[in-house]
C-alpha cells in the first residue's frame, strides 16, 4: 500500500463514525458541526431561508399558471399526467382529453370539476372556465404533413370513459356511476 493510500485509510478510519450520521439526533449533529468549526446557527438560518424560497418559488409559479392548461398547472405542482390521473381517479387518456378540451363541457359531471380543482390547488370556477373553452388542436409535431389539422368535435364524457382502454375497471364503474348524479 502506498503512503498516500495509507494516509487515506487512516483519515477514513478516524472519521468512520461520521459514516452513519442518520443515527445521530439533531443535538449531536449540531455538536459535531461545531466541532468541525461551523457556525451552525447561521448555517441553519441560511438553509431554512433558502428552503423557504425553494418551496415558495415552486408554489408561486404553480399559482400564477394555474389555468394556462390543466397539465402545465399539474406539472408545476410536481404532477405528471399519470400523477394527475391518480390524484383525480381518472385515467391518463381522460386527463389528456380534458386538458385539450376534447370532452363536451355539458357532459362533464360536477364532481370532475371538484376533483380537478382540488388536485390543481385552483378555484373551481377557474377549472370550469378553462374546460368551457373550445377544443385545442393536437400539438404541431404530431400533425401529418399531408393532412390539414382539424378542430375535433368534443366527445361525451361518458362515451370517453366507456371507450377508454387505459382505465381500470373500478375507476370506470365509479365514473359511469356519476351519470345518474347529473
Amino acid at each position, binding site marked *: 500500500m502506498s*503512503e*498516500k493510500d495509507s*494516509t*487515506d485509510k*487512516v*483519515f*477514513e*478510519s*478516524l*472519521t*468512520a*463514525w*461520521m*459514516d452513519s*450520521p442518520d443515527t*445521530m439526533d*439533531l443535538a449531536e*449533529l449540531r*455538536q*459535531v*458541526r461545531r*466541532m*468541525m*468549526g*461551523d*457556525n*451552525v446557527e447561521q*448555517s*441553519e438560518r*441560511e*438553509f*431554512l431561508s433558502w*428552503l423557504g424560497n*425553494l*418551496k415558495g418559488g*415552486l408554489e408561486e409559479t404553480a399559482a400564477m399558471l394555474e389555468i394556462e392548461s390543466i*397539465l402545465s398547472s399539474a*406539472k408545476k*405542482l*410536481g*404532477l*405528471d*399526467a399519470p*400523477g394527475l390521473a391518480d390524484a383525480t381517479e381518472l385515467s*391518463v*387518456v381522460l*386527463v*389528456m382529453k380534458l386538458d*385539450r378540451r*376534447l370532452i363536451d363541457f355539458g357532459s362533464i359531471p360536477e364532481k370532475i370539476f371538484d376533483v380537478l380543482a382540488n388536485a390543481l390547488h385552483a378555484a373551481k370556477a377557474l377549472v370550469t372556465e378553462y374546460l368551457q373553452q373550445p*377544443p385545442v388542436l*393536437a*400539438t404541431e409535431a*404530431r400533425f401529418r404533413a399531408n393532412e390539414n389539422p*382539424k378542430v*375535433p*368535435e368534443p366527445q361525451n364524457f361518458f362515451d370517453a370513459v366507456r*371507450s*377508454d382502454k*387505459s382505465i381500470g375497471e373500478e375507476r370506470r364503474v365509479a365514473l359511469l356511476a356519476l351519470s345518474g348524479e347529473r
Partner: protein
Amino acid sequence: MDYGTTDAELALEAEEMKTLDPETEKLLHGYTEEEWLTWYNALVVIATRECKKRYWRTGKDGHLPEGYSPETIVQEAIARLFDGRRQWNHLEYPGNSPIGILRATVESIAGDLVRSQEHKRYAYLESAADDDDDDDSEGRAERLLHQSRKNAYQLSLPPDRTVYLSGVLSRIEARVEDRADLSSYLACLLRELKRSQIAEELKVSPDRVDELRKQFLARTDDIYQELFGGKQQAQKKGGA
C-alpha cells in the same frame, strides 16, 4: 368520429411529460422544520468529510471548484430532488426519509467536483510540461519545475502530513486507553466496520454503539476539532 388525436398518442405524450413524481412531491412538502434541519446537518457532515478526504488525498485544501462549499453541495442535492433532476427511486431508497437518496446525491456531487478539479490540475501540469519545448535554460528550468510539481502531486504526500495523522491516532488511542469499551470501539473504527458490524463485533445493541460514539467523541472532541481545522477557524473568528 375523428377526435384529432388518438388515445395512444395522448398516452405517449403524457409519458414524455414526466416530472417529479407525486409521491416524492407530497413527501418533500410534508416534512417538518426539525426533520429538514436534522437531514441538512447530517448531509453537511457527510459533505465535509468527503471534501476533507480530498485534502488528505491531494494536499489541496481551501475552496472547492465552482464556488461550492459543503453547505451548497447539500443545497444542490436537495434542489435536484425538488425539481426532478434527481429521481427518488422508492424501491432503491424505501421509506419516507429522503436521507438515503440525498446522501447518494451529495456523495456524487462532491465526487464529481473533486474529480473535475483533480483532472484539471493533472491536465494543466501535463500540458504545461509537454508544451514547453523551449531549449533555453529558462525553459528547461520551467519544465523541470512543472515536472517536479506533477510528480509531487502524483506520487507522495509531504511526510509531515502522514506523521501528523499518525500522531492524531496515537493521541486518540491514549485518550481512551483507560476504557476498554471505547478502545474496542476505536479498534472497530480502524477496521472500518459499520455500525451494525460494530454491534455484532462488540456483542452490544446498535443503540449501545451510538452511546459509545457519543462517549468517544466527548473524550476526543478537541483532537477532532484540530483535525477538521475547527480550532484554527474558531481562533480566526475570535481574533477577527
